[in-house]
């Protein structure tokens, strides 16, 4: 943001037509407030205001043991709760140099990919709705329900399942887990053509998203935009490839990269990632060992050796990283959660300028923001 813009914010000019999108607005998907200055319908500048649901998680985590921190990470990016859990677990396991059983790695990766599909699916539904295609929302929800049913069967909860724990998993997965996952893969493969016909190929949709909110690679890197949004600009930032963790070294998959950098490229990245996740699921489910337990041996009270630990994982919306500073106690001395949406949000104020309100909505939707993850 240039200084000129900031001056404008403070000394609002009389002719500026300022509308507040949010904190309650259908297309901001939560309590995000965008202060938009318009010239006609064209956006002159846009300032995001955040902090409406800041819960001080980093401070709360300083009073929680490592096992208790897990349930806080659920509530940041609630759509990829499992992946967030895994970041903390991996950081603790790396610090303690615990080797988790092979089976746990497989199950974690399966759940990661299921979460990713569920998350992208919800995004697809909501993105369609942002653009006015209301039916997509129900089709997306219908298919996401199948993933949530698998979650519910194994973990007992559908969204915020604190299923990971340092050293492994809370329980073993349900005996039907493998079967139901395969069934879901088959079911979802059948439904994907509907998605394609309904939205991906639609000429109105193309007009609404192609060339809208163009972000080049340099901007993406400079703003730290990761995940599907960054990969839509050709920024190779898939942590599963860049710094593999868990079982991902053994899995064969490709990183989806598009170079256009517009909303449609970001859309395509997510659609392709859903298909790629299905491929990964097929590999993992067939290779998953039946035996091997679900947790490594851990002490009842976990104390990390003094030091600093950094763990990155690929959440559904980008790079999620945990930075733990330990002083050898059972509580972390300081935890920093590097959440993907925090970095992704601020590029919006650059992308929105020059477009019209409808473009702002499309760009905001294509960045796939989850507000609790921004505020933490």
């Amino acid at each position, binding site marked *: 943001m240039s200084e000129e813009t900031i001056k404008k914010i403070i000394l609002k000019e009389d002719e500026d*037509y*300022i*509308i507040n999108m949010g904190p309650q*607005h*259908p*297309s901001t998907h939560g309590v995000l407030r965008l202060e938009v200055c318009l010239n006609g*319908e064209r956006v002159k500048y846009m300032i995001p205001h955040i902090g409406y649901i800041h819960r001080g998680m980093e401070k709360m985590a300083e009073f929680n043991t490592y096992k208790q921190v897990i349930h806080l990470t659920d509530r940041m990016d609630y759509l990829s709760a499992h992946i967030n859990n895994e970041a903390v677990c991996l950081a603790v396991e790396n610090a303690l140099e615990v080797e988790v059983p092979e089976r746990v790695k497989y199950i974690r990766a399966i759940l990661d990919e299921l979460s990713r599909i569920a998350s992208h699916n919800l995004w697809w539904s909501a993105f*369609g*709705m*942002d*653009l*006015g*295609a*209301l*039916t997509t*929302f*129900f*089709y997306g929800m*219908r298919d996401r329900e199948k993933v949530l049913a698998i979650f519910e069967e194994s973990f007992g909860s559908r969204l915020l399942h604190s299923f990971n724990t340092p050293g492994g998993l809370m329980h073993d997965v349900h005996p039907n887990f493998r079967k139901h996952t395969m069934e879901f893969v088959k079911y979802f493969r059948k439904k994907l053509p509907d998605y394609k016909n*309904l*939205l991906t190929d*639609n000429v*109105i*949709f193309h*007009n*609404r998203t192609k060339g809208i909110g163009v972000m080049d690679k340099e901007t993406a890197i400079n703003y730290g935009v990761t995940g599907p949004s960054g990969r839509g600009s050709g920024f190779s930032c898939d942590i599963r490839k860049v710094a593999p963790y868990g079982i991902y070294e053994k899995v064969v998959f490709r990183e989806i990269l598009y170079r256009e950098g517009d909303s449609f490229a970001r859309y395509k990245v997510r659609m392709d990632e859903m298909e790629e996740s299905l491929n990964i699921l097929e590999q993992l489910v067939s290779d998953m060992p039946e035996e091997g337990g679900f947790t490594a041996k851990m002490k009842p009270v976990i104390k990390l050796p003094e030091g600093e630990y950094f763990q990155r994982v690929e959440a559904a919306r980008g790079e999620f990283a945990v930075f733990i500073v330990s002083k050898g106690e059972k509580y972390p001395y300081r935890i920093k959660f590097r959440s993907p949406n925090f970095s992704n949000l601020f590029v919006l104020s650059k992308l929105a300028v020059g477009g*019209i*309100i*409808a*473009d702002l*909505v499309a760009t905001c939707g294509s960045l796939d923001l989850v507000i609790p993850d921004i505020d933490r």
Partner: protein
Amino acid sequence: MLLLDIYSFSTLTSSIDESLNNVMVPWLATLTEFVLVGIVFLLFYALLGLFLVYLERKVCAVIQNRIGPNRVGKWGMFQTIADLIKLLMKELITIKNADKFLFNLAPFIVIIASFMAIAALPFAKGLQAIDLNIGIFYIIAVSSLGVVGILIAGWSSNSKYSLIGAMRSGAQIISYELSVGLSVLAIVIFSGSMQISTIVESQADGWWIFKGHLPALFAFVLYLITATAEINRGPFDLAEAESELTAGFHTEYSGIKFAFFFLAEYMNMFIVAAIATTLFLGGWMPFHIGGWEGFNQIMDYIPSIIWFFGKTFVVIYIIMWFKWTFPRLRIDQLLNLEWKYLLPLNLINTVIISFVVLLGLYFK
């Protein structure tokens, strides 16, 4: 043709007219007729509006793999009535610094505009309030009055979202008025009359959509698209684009004033569907296939009012089908679509139809 006369409403209406004239002086009889017709139309308007809301909710529910309203009454039939009662009981909020007079006036303008258009619609044989000799021109003129109400609503609300919505609506309707007019003109050329009863009569031996070859079919498709835009329905619902402007021009309205906007929107949908039926699908004329005498006679047994409403609801369904499938257009794309695609196509189509009519290439 004898059978058709049984179902004709003209016997009913003329008998009422006669009996009224017998007991009253002529001017009083005319006045009573005005009042009677007004009451009948008001009831019809309200009930049909409620039914359309219910229908829309059911159709979109089935499209979206849902059941839809199913709590109030059997299959949720009284859901919309319950909603109406709720809206009636709600507080009417006028926000600060709003232009009170215009703010209260706007919903009435919108609803009167759509109410006036019903007058010229032929619902069945002999069931038409007024058969103007420029009937189709009258309907187009009156139905575009509604935009004045929308503009007033947006301006007087003292809300930024409302203003943007109203301005969008203004731009949209001014543009699409042209295409609606031109595609209606196609049938006026075919039938050589602007009088609605004449247009319907001209389709006794075949509907224009079949008689008029491809140009008429093309005009029908163009009419559907432009009419959908004209009544601010999805995918052209920019004036109230929910995800952008929360509710557009009626953001600040509550209670029964909001209900007026809502009802007018659905009734406008009915009116454009009814016009499409009258012009392209033969109005209340039954479906005939040349040479199949038995089939045609069976078709004649079905009352004309059922034919009219059946066809209208098919068109309404198609309009709903659009809405629940497509994403919304952007305002500049919407105007592009009109000025770069629909209007040129319509002009070309009008020229072709003129030649078709001049050379007598259509079925007579």
